[in-house]
């Protein structure tokens, strides 16, 4: 009896395994599919995939995860990898994927025409589709706009004990500092990083939202954050988050006549070198550059559309003639590792 029951249980288990294994992910060979390895985790992006499926009849399969780990997965899967498109939230990881030989060149006239040259790889290996500005947030009751000017100025001793920023481990900081290395050279940036460390209000911790909360609570007076975190709080359904946003102002630095403009990072995508559905992958990238997709991006997560001339809901918070750093994304992305070493060397943990 006991034995028979064991076998029955084992049989059921095997059956379940077979069903799960065969049923997962790769069914439906008839309908055309596109496999996304996606480091963006915004629920609002679902509208993009649904719309693409409606327009083309291509069903979108999705794995969301950390970009670095998705890159490792594509590497391990090798030539048989099902990955068609890799999407990241920063240029640094796209550059890393390209360096690892995981991206293929996409010489698309559509993309070349619509995506500004500084927001894509010069050789067409990857394209940026949204812009995210690294800006200075400030406590309205303790800082006035005329006290703010540039990133470089935040290392000035008058900000001692007042600066809030997240860890140097984070790629948003690495990209910003990578761009500064390109403009000023490493020795200047090393000095600047030491100045920032001396001005810190607390050891670097938390994410960008945490810096905004700390600003509102009075733990510091100025913070380096990506712009959309502020907009999220401003448009939150929770009153206390709106109250935080009310105490905080956003300042777009480096706008003076001699200045280079605010640092712009991109969320972008590349077609994987071994993509089994290359045509669909290219079509998807071109779709992401369409007016409709650009609007969804901008509305969903408050990012700036990469394509010029899209009605921009962010216009209200940015200066009328916003000056953006023209540096190509590949340049600061390539400087990321050097930037990390400089920051860690300066004591920016």
């Amino acid at each position: 009896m006991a034995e028979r029951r064991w076998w029955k249980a084992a049989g059921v288990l095997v059956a379940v395994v077979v069903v799960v294994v065969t049923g997962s992910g790769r069914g439906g060979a008839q309908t055309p599919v596109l496999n996304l390895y996606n480091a963006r985790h915004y629920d609002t992006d679902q509208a993009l995939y649904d719309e693409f499926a409606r327009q083309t009849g291509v069903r979108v399969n999705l794995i969301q995860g950390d970009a670095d780990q998705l890159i490792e997965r594509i590497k391990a899967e090798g030539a048989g990898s099902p990955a068609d498109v890799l999407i990241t939230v920063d240029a640094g990881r796209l550059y890393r994927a390209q360096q690892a030989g995981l991206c293929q060149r996409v010489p698309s006239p559509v993309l070349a025409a619509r995506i500004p040259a500084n927001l894509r790889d010069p050789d067409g290996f990857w394209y940026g589709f949204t812009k995210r500005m690294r800006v200075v947030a400030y406590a309205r009751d303790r800082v006035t706009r005329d006290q703010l000017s540039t990133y470089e100025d935040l290392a000035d001793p008058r900000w001692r004990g007042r600066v809030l920023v997240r860890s140097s481990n984070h790629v948003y900081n690495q990209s910003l500092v990578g761009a500064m290395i390109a403009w000023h050279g490493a020795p200047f940036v090393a000095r600047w990083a030491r100045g920032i460390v001396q001005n810190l209000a607390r050891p670097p911790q938390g994410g960008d939202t945490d810096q905004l909360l700390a600003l509102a609570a009075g733990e510091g007076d100025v913070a380096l954050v990506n712009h959309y975190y502020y907009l999220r709080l401003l448009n939150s359904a929770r009153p206390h988050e709106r109250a935080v946003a009310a105490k905080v102002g956003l300042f777009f630095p480096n706008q003076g006549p001699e200045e280079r403009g605010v640092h712009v990072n991109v969320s972008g995508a590349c077609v994987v070198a071994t993509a089994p559905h290359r045509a669909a992958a290219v079509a998807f990238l071109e779709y992401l550059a369409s007016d409709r997709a650009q609007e969804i991006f901008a509305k969903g997560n408050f990012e700036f559309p990469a394509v010029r001339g899209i009605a921009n809901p962010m216009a209200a918070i940015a200066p009328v003639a916003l000056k953006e750093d023209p540096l190509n994304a590949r340049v600061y992305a390539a400087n990321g590792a050097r930037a990390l070493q400089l920051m860690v060397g300066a004591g920016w943990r």
Partner: protein
Amino acid sequence: MAASQGGPGAPGGAVTARSLHWLLPAASLAVAGGLSLPVLTVAASLLVAAEGPWVEFVRLVLPRYVVTTVWLVLGVCAGALVIGVGTAWLVTVCRVPGQRLWQWALLLPMAVPAYLLAYTYADLLQYAGPVQTTMRAWFGWGRGDYWFPQIRSLGGAIVVMTLAFYPYVYMLARAAFLEQSGAALEASRTLGHSPWSTFWRVALPLARPGIAAGVALVGMEVLADFGTVKHFELDTFATGIYLTWFTLGSPVGAARLAAGLMAFVLAVMSLERLSRGSRRFHATGTAPRRPAVFPLRGWRAAAGVAACVIPPLGGFGLPAAALLVMAATAGDPLFGPTFLRLAANTLLLAVLAGTLAVAVAALIAYGLRLTPSPAMRVAARIVGLGYSVPGAVIAVGVMIPFGYADRLLGAWLHAATGRPPGLVLSGTVFTLVYAYLVRFLAVSLGTVEAGLGRIRPTMDDAARTLGHGPGSTLLRVHAPLMRGSLLTAALLVVVDLLKELPATLILRPFNFDTLAVRVYQLASDERLAQASTAALAIVAVGLLPVLLLDRTIARARGPRDTPDARP
């Protein structure tokens, strides 16, 4: 008992028995070897030359990382030891008011992933959090006017992880105390020892293997943790591995660090085994009586109750309440039918892998008992190492051999069918379950080995003399005796799996999310309040196995485990 008619005496049975005699150990060795593959893949990195920018970087920061890690492990293990053993003693051997309630309440923190504790405590206690904000509002303080402990610190991490992990020690210590013959404790009292002295000189040494196993689990959990230390901005060995790998882009460097970590764990565990020597504790034939009870009265009772209330309150009550408030005021915008699918995926994976983990553990433990060859012993130890390695490292250690196997398989299938088949193994639930086994087998193997170890070898001899082969002995004698251990092992793994994130995140198939993945998606996007709904769901789903665990522990005490007069 109809099935036993065709039993051992029949010719067919004899053939099966004989073939099982070598088949079982062989299968056991094969499975253990197969599951050692990722760990060996990681260790193989030691053969590759160390070069690249990571070498310099690691040399620069590693000493600091190691020091932090050592303090963290020591702090959490010490905390878990004191709380776990102390509370287990209180609710098992002493009598405190509300005893039955505390017995299971003390297990509740197991349902809460450590990273969730970190999220909620950081949220509550940071400068901008509700506690400090309220204090400032009440007393009119400003910045720098008062002292408040920094939650994102080594101390904060030790407290939070102790709250998360002490139940492992509590559970195993409690099981050990329950198994102890009341006679031993009574004898100690008769010989003039006070309750304290009895605890130190009799109960504790007898319970040592169980307690050591619990502390080892805690230490390994701490070493493997990434979510908590990352949130608390601590630099530990695990963050060093992540940094080397994902920021400095050196998988080889990361694997070398992981290999170093495993070598350290192996050394510590061997030391513990050596220091325990060859002492073995088998339950004696006489049915042990329930342990003597030391009733607590007056202030001692109050202190006892406080000691039993604070750990589950800090590790479960408070964070669960905070999550509930967040979920009620903000919550997940996708809450609805999607969540049922997430919960179903989570449960399915956990139960599937949990069952397999126990089956595999039984196979390995039994192979070890039948033929304790050096190869078998080494394989069993290596398999257990996966528990001390961060899940992401295991995941990639799994992906590399599977990717290789897929390439071979793909080439073969391509030649056979004329069409490239794509990936057969990678990116399936199979891979994921395999990774779970590698990561969590230590838990089930430890529990099953302990259970098997308590069955006296004379029992095997008796069964074999009566004509039962090894397979038949396993199914008819050992399995019924070990029902409690097997169930405990399965539940422990299931509880761990419900909380598992890093391996799931990397290895899961397309369009397949779990509750933990949902928490990650929102939390990594800095939407902690919205992540609270999925977080609460993880805790809720985890409650059931935790409560079952309490029942199996309470039932599996000595007398029930020893056989009655069954033939």
